[in-house]
């Protein structure tokens, strides 16, 4: 199988502008940042959540707490994954009770990751509200889950993959659409 890059969906500056827009939208819709907290889903949701929090500092001058969530233990496909998935610790150092939480991830696809993340969150307490923020929504949902804050919606086919590459993890900064082609 060959992986072919078909198109660039976002450049570094587009990612940056999109995240700042999302930060504004979240603050506006939440009516302030008092009970607001961001939860980045490992891996690429984590730097995205941190960058959105950084942008919010510029808007409201407040530090919005950021937590990270590893969803491996909450997956529903444990018996289908090849071998030990390497676990990482979740790190949510604030209480989630009564909080207005925004889950942050790079790509929204089947919705299963978000289902798992919500299970993880509710083990920590009872948030007042949970919403979802993604950089890319590529469709193909298998769960009744939608994002309230979307960077960009992209029509994709099943064989295509969206790769969000972030400088914190991938040493480059762009979003690309790649395709799997049978030889």
């Amino acid at each position, binding site marked *: 199988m060959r992986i072919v890059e078909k198109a660039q969906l976002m450049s570094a500056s587009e990612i940056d502008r999109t995240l700042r827009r999302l930060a504004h939208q979240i603050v506006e819709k939440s009516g302030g940042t008092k009970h607001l907290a961001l939860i980045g889903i490992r891996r690429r949701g984590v730097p995205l959540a941190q960058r959105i929090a950084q942008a919010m500092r510029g808007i409201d001058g407040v530090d919005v707490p950021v937590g990270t969530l590893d969803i491996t233990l909450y997956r529903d496909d444990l018996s289908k994954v*090849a071998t030990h998935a390497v676990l990482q*610790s*979740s*790190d949510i150092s604030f209480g989630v009770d009564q909080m207005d939480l925004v889950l942050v991830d790079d790509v929204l696809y089947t919705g299963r990751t978000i289902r798992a993340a919500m299970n993880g969150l509710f083990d920590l307490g009872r948030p007042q509200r949970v919403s979802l923020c993604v950089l890319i929504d590529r469709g193909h949902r298998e769960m009744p889950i939608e994002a309230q804050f979307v960077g960009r919606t992209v029509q994709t086919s099943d064989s295509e993959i969206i790769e969000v590459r972030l400088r914190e993890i991938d040493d480059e900064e762009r979003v690309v659409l790649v395709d799997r082609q049978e030889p």
Partner: protein
Amino acid sequence: MTFRLRDLLALEPLTADELTFLLDQSQPFQTIQRNPLKKLATLRGKTVALAFFENSTRTRISFGTAASRLGADTMNLQAEASSLKKGESLLDTVQTLNAMKPDCLVMRHASSGAADFVARHLDIPVINAGDGTHEHPSQGLLDALTIRDRLGKIDNLNVTILGDLQHSRVARSNIHLLGKFGCRFTLCGPAMWVPKELEKIGAPGVSIRRVFKLEEALEDADVVLVLRVQTERMHEPSISNEDYVLGYQLNAERLRRAKPNALVLHPGPMNRGSEITPEVADGPQSCVLEQVTNGIAVRMALLYLLISGGPEDVPSEPQAAPKEEPQPQRNRRSTDKKDLSHASD
């Protein structure tokens, strides 16, 4: 890194990288112990068989709790209630358990090598929860995790192990683990419990010395591992409790010989006033309760890794080695079949 672990029978064959991986994978489960809701559904529908052919309270409860916090069910076999009393062999007993289709077997047995023997006959993962005087791998891991949490590292430490070394599988698992990280060991206790052979149980290059005077053995120690005085084994040649207290009890005054922040570990159950004073057991250097909490995290990690990474779950991709292919553990099993057959009675 990641590696395929089929069973956990001993720490001796594992490399430093593999041991570090197991400790790292226990950390997320430590976090979960602090959640208001501690129960996961990760292993929902899986069953863990707990077969304890030797008395155990805390290890059995710890494994049982670890299984239930992962969402797995348990089946329990306890020696007193089992048909072993009616003369059934070890192999028949575990094969009967296996026929009830558990996904993992956790077992403790009074014979060294019993878990290894059973693992060779079963196709499910086997975790050794203590076999005779051989090893108690999950205890070794939870001790190392506790030390790493407190001191930030497990490398190049001076570790003093105190008590009945000869009968201690806990001491052996600790030496096999910490020895791979350059720790140096001082073994101390009455001479008949610290035989000379113990100096050679570590891998080549691991420094193990015997010291019979406790004050001297504690000099410069980073970690003091106190073993239980096994009163049930106190037959001839033995030592009276009074003499043991006089010579080997860890008290606050003696502990001052060790480094100022030296850790005190005890695998439990403690005999307060015998091998350890209440002042030390409850003091700031004591890690006894952290060891218990960490035990659940380590055992959750082991159950998760062994059950979720089972060979039958692997799709037929090239990276997935089929069960029959020679793996180091498999090899070892087929070569030393004979010397463990005694464990079946």
